[in-house]
C-alpha cells in the first residue's frame, strides 16, 4: 500500500511539474515504485530489467530537456487529468477486477498476493496517462502520458501467465523506444517553436 501511495504522489508530481527535468525525475520515481509492488510473483531479474528501462526512459527525457527551465505548464490540465484518472481508476477496478471471490487482504508494507495493489496502481497509471495524453498540447506532456500508460500496462502484463522474462524484456524495450521517440519529438517541436 505504501508503494501504491508513492506511485500516486509521484504521478501527481510528474503531472504538475512545469519543467521537463522534474517530470523525468518524478517519472523514474513512479516507474521504480510501480515495479517494486510485490504481488507474490516478483523476480529480481524482472525488477532489474524494468527499473533499468524506467531509468533509461527518464534519462532520455532529462537529456532532451537540454536546460533546467524547459517544460510545459500543465495549467487546468492537471486538475482534469487528476479527476478523470481518479474516477476512471475506480470504475475500471470495479468493472475489470477478476471475479475470483478471493478475500482481499492488503497491508502497509508487506506483499499483496491478491494482486489488488498491482491492479489499482496499473489502472491509476493507465487512466492518468490517457488523461494526460488526451489533454496534452505538445510532445512534453504527450511523452509523459505515453510512458505512464506503458508503466501501467507493464503492471497488468505481470499478472498474465506465460513467458514473463521475454514479455518484460519486450515491454522494457518498448518503453525505451517510446521515450526516444518522445524525446525526438520534443527536440523537434522546440526547434520549430524557437525558429
Amino acid at each position: 500500500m505504501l508503494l501504491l501511495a508513492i506511485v500516486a504522489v509521484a504521478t501527481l508530481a510528474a503531472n504538475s511539474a512545469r519543467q521537463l527535468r522534474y517530470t523525468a525525475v518524478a517519472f523514474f520515481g513512479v516507474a521504480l515504485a510501480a515495479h517494486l509492488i510485490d504481488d507474490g510473483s516478483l523476480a529480481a531479474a524482472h525488477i532489474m530489467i524494468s527499473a533499468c528501462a524506467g531509468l533509461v526512459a527518464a534519462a532520455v527525457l532529462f537529456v532532451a530537456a537540454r536546460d533546467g527551465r524547459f517544460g510545459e505548464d500543465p495549467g487546468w490540465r492537471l486538475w482534469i487529468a487528476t479527476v478523470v484518472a481518479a474516477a476512471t481508476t475506480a470504475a475500471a477496478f470495479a468493472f475489470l477486477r477478476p471475479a475470483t471471490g478471493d478475500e482481499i487482504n492488503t497491508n502497509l508494507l508487506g506483499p499483496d498476493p491478491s494482486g489488488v495493489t498491482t491492479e489499482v496502481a496499473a489502472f491509476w497509471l493507465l487512466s492518468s496517462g490517457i488523461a494526460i495524453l488526451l489533454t496534452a498540447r505538445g510532445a512534453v506532456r504527450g511523452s509523459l502520458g505515453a510512458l505512464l500508460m506503458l508503466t501501467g500496462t507493464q503492471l497488468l502484463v505481470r499478472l498474465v501467465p506465460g513467458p514473463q522474462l521475454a514479455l518484460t524484456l519486450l515491454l522494457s524495450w518498448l518503453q525505451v523506444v517510446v521515450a526516444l521517440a518522445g524525446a525526438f519529438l520534443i527536440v523537434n517541436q522546440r526547434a520549430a517553436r524557437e525558429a
Partner: protein
Amino acid sequence: MIEVIALLVVAALFAFVVRKRLAVVGTVTLAALAAAIIVVVLLPADASGDVLELPWRMTELGRLATVVLLGTLCLLVLAVWIDEPAYNFFPTALAVAAAVIAVLMLTTPIAIYAALVVGLLVPVGSFTFQVNRNRSAEAAYRHFSFVALGGCLGITALALSASLGRDQPPATFVLLVVILVVAFALKLAAIPFHTHAALLASEVPASALALYFGVLVPTTFIAFAQILVLSGLLPAIVQIGKVQDLLLTLGLASALGGAFLATGSTELRRVAVYSVIANLGQSLVGIATLSGPGIIGAMAIALVSGMAATQQLLAAGTLERRAGADRPSATTAPLAALAFVVGGFAMIGAPPLVAFPGHFFVELIAYSYSGWMGTALVVATLGVLVAQLRAAMAIFRTAPDRWRVERKPIAGIVGAAVFAVLLIGGVQPDGFLQPIAAFADEFLRALHPL
C-alpha cells in the same frame, strides 16, 4: 528467427552510424533485407521454436507476407537511395523490417502487439523534416499519440483477457474486445480515427508515408487478424453479436468515408492515402463476416493495397518534387505519372491484377450477408475509381509537344516492378491466395473450437 531479427537490428545500428554515407548505407540496407528474405524463404514449412520461452512459428501466411512486405521495403530503400536521399530512412527501414518479422512469426498475442507498436513508433524519425517550414513535427506527434494510446489500450485489453478467468460476465469480454478493436482502429487510421493520417498525408515525406501505408498498415491488419485467432477471443465475438456489428460499422464507415474523402481530394498523396483507408474498410468488413471468403479477401486486399500505396505514394512524391511550385503534371515525370495511374488499377481491384480476387470475395460475401452492405462496398469501390480517375485526369491535363522520360525514373521503375508482380499474381493467383486460405482455415478453427 531470432538470428534474422538480430541481423536486421545490428544492420539498423550500423546503418544509423554510417547513415550519411549513402553508398555504404544503401548497400548494407539492401543486402540485409535481401538476406532476411532469403532466410525466411528457405526456412522449412511450419518451422518453429522459442526465444526465452516465447514461441514462434513460420506459417504460410507469415512467409508470404514477409516476402511481400520486405520486398516492398527493398523497393522503397532503392527509391530513397537513388531518388530522394533521406539519411534517417535506412536505419528506420531495417528496424521496421525486424518488427515486421517479429509480428509475423511470434505466436503470443501480447508479444505480437508489443513488436507491432515498436515498429509503428520507429518511423517517427522519418516523418519529420525541415520542421521550420511545415507541420511535419506536429504530424509525427499526432502519429506518436495515436500509436501510444492504441498500443497501451490494446496490450491492456489482451493482458486483462488473458488474466481473467473465462467465467466472467459477458459484458467484461465485450468491453475488452471493444477496447481491442478501437485500439487497432486507431493504428489503422480507420474512420473516424483517421485525423492523424490526414495530417501525415500532407506533411511528411512521400517515402516515409509509403513506409507507413505500404508496409506498416498491412502489417497492423495482419497482426489484428492473428491476435484475434491467438487470443482466444473469437468464440466470445461469435456469441456476442455486438462486437461483430462494431467491426462491420467501422469497416463500412472507413470504406465509404475513405472513398468519399478520396473523391474530394485534389492532392495525389491524399487520393492514395484515402484509397488505402477505403480498402482497409473493405478488409474490416471481410474479417467481420467471420467467413472463409471474407477473411481471404480481407488479407489479400490489405497486402495488395500496401503494394499499390507504395507505388502511388512514391510516384506522387516524384511528381510533386519535379513540378516544384506548379501542379504535379505528367509532362515533368511521365513514367512516375504512369506508375500512379496503374497503381490506381490495383487500388480499385481491377482484373487481371491479383487485387481483383480480394475485392471480389469481400463484395460477394457482403452481398450474401445483406444486400445493402454489398451495395455499400460497391459504391465505395466506385468512389475510389472516381477519385483515381480524377487524379489521373489532373496529372495528364497538359501534354508536351514531345514526351521525354525523366532523369532517374526510379518511381516509374518501382511502379513497373509492382505492376509486374501484381499481374503475375493475377495470372497465377494460387500462389498468393493459398497461404491466405491456410490462415483462413486456422481462423475458422479458432472461431469454433471443439
